């Protein structure tokens, strides 16, 4: 192992889920630091993500949630720190590098191209060509094959309301669009899926649908990072909660160890999380 795992208080994790934490983390960051001139965006943050868990990242605006995630997924190049994927040191220079390594990101907005159909969106920049000379010489797309597999990807997430893969994404509801973005991540993310505020623009019912998809993804054994401002969603979906505060990590809690009020108190600095307190309570 190239990297020692962070201490983990297993006692606050429900018994049936503890086996997840027997394995080594799928994605780790150590001493993640980013600085723009005199502004410190991240001040040496450590993070571990395990396969089959939903790790929520919460924090106030400007606490460094998105910055941390962007450093892990190649959207930003950190000033310091190391990223490990499956224990191996990796250096992502562009989001494509992370994507090729099996890390998919679903952005809050800008996740899909409204004018293109669902299948085209799922396969955007990963188009598959027809077999034979039609594909190799004429570069012809395998539209039927992509539509069929796109349909399967969407079905796998338990989405019944999207039937026609040839329909333009702008004809879909907000929740369905997000479903397309998540399906895309699920279809190609072999290791980690990062969701940045996936429910921010959605109504109650659609948010529920997206949370169900997230749980579905977790069942398939992916490591999931969920960035969210919505505390009820975090407490519903997350296994562990990483709290960012002022560019650093204020602690990692679980929905069982702390309630929402305590979580928000730690997030805003009204309360300090003492690691001993967590272990002591066990």
């Amino acid at each position: 192992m190239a990297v020692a795992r962070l201490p983990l208080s297993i006692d606050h994790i429900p018994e049936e889920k503890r086996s997840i934490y027997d394995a080594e983390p799928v994605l780790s960051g150590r001493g993640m630091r980013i600085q723009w001139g005199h502004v410190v965006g991240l001040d040496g943050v450590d993070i571990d993500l395990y396969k089959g868990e939903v790790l929520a990242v919460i924090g106030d605006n400007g606490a460094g949630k998105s910055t941390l995630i962007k450093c892990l997924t190649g959207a930003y190049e950190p000033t310091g720190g190391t990223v490990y994927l499956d224990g191996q040191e990796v250096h992502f220079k562009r989001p494509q590098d992370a994507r090729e390594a099996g890390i998919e990101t679903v952005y809050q907005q800008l996740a899909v191209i409204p004018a293109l159909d669902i299948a085209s969106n799922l396969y955007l920049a990963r188009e598959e060509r027809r077999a034979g000379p039609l594909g190799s010489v004429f570069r012809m797309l395998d539209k039927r094959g992509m539509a069929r597999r796109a349909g399967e990807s969407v079905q796998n997430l338990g989405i019944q309301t999207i039937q026609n893969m040839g329909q333009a994404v702008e004809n879909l509801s907000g929740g369905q669009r997000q479903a397309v973005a998540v399906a895309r991540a699920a279809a190609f993310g072999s290791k980690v899926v990062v969701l940045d505020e996936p429910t921010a623009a959605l109504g109650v019912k659609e948010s529920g649908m997206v949370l169900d998809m997230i749980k579905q993804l977790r069942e398939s054994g992916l490591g999931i990072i969920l960035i969210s401002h919505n505390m009820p969603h975090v407490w519903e979906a997350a296994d562990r909660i990483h709290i960012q505060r002022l560019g650093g990590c204020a602690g990692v809690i679980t929905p069982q160890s702390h309630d929402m009020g305590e979580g928000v108190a730690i997030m805003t600095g009204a309360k300090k999380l003492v690691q001993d307190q967590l272990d002591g309570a066990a």
Partner: protein
Amino acid sequence: MSTASSDAAAQFSGRQQSALQRVQNALHLYPWISPLVILILSFIAFTILNPRFATAGSMGLLIQQMAIVAALAIGQTLVILTAGIDLSVGAITVLAMMVMATLAKDGGMPGLLALIIGVGLATLAGLLNGILVTRMKLPPFIVTLGTLSIFTAIALLYSGGSSIQASHLPAFLNWLGKGFSIGGLRLTYGVLLVILLYAVVGFVLSQTAWGRHVYAVGDEPEAARLSGVPSRRVLLQVYTVAGFIYGIAAWALIGRSGAATPNAIPTANLDSITAVVIGGTSLFGGRGRLIGTLIGAIIVQTFAFGLSLAGVNQQWRLLAIGLLVIIAVSIDQWIRKVK
């Protein structure tokens, strides 16, 4: 973004639609339907006004007259699909045409070589537009407004501003003006080449990954980039391919006009944009089909030809085209609101 209204939220398939919404949806999927309807109606109307309109001879002439604008409109469609606009269409075409003709006449260069240099120059001119748009991050309107003047000036300076008659040019450069007749329908090789261009570019846009990327970059450049589409490279390629097409059109233009003249096609910019817009391609990028542009180019020429055959003052044609442009853009705005 859809509203949060909860029961409508996740149910697309079972939704009730009014007839108007169904029309809106159909136009959204096939934006070339409305120009096609206009084309068919105007054909019927002009045939009633003057039966000579619907003869093979008239059609052959109509097709030849619209071919150059139709070719230029292919490049314009590519650029407009990326939410850009190309005002240097005419300038690049004239530059390529004058360079080809001058090299052949004054330089005594073989026709093929002059053609290759002319088309190459047009391609480079497109590349320059692309570099200014992607690297300098200048708005396409400003870039091509600038290069419009620059390329026009170069063409005039290089050629001395005078026309070169076809009789002074090698046969190869005039070849696209030659043709054949099927029944009474006379077609030129230039027309066939333009049809071939439509087939090739239409295939690339609708059947290849690059085509998808053009639409994606035009619709949501940032989302496309985050999805892994090399947005800047695609944009650069679009302007370059457009330049190449203008170069080919310049060759066809020599054949069509029987000469290389600096003012051979003074309204190229607006005519090509008009064809694209009437053809149902959105000026906001990401929406439209190349077949629509072809229909748009035919509509413009149909009005010109039909009105003159009907003995109507040409100013009515301008008025009709102006109305069509406004109607086309209004329809585009309406179908973009489709839910």
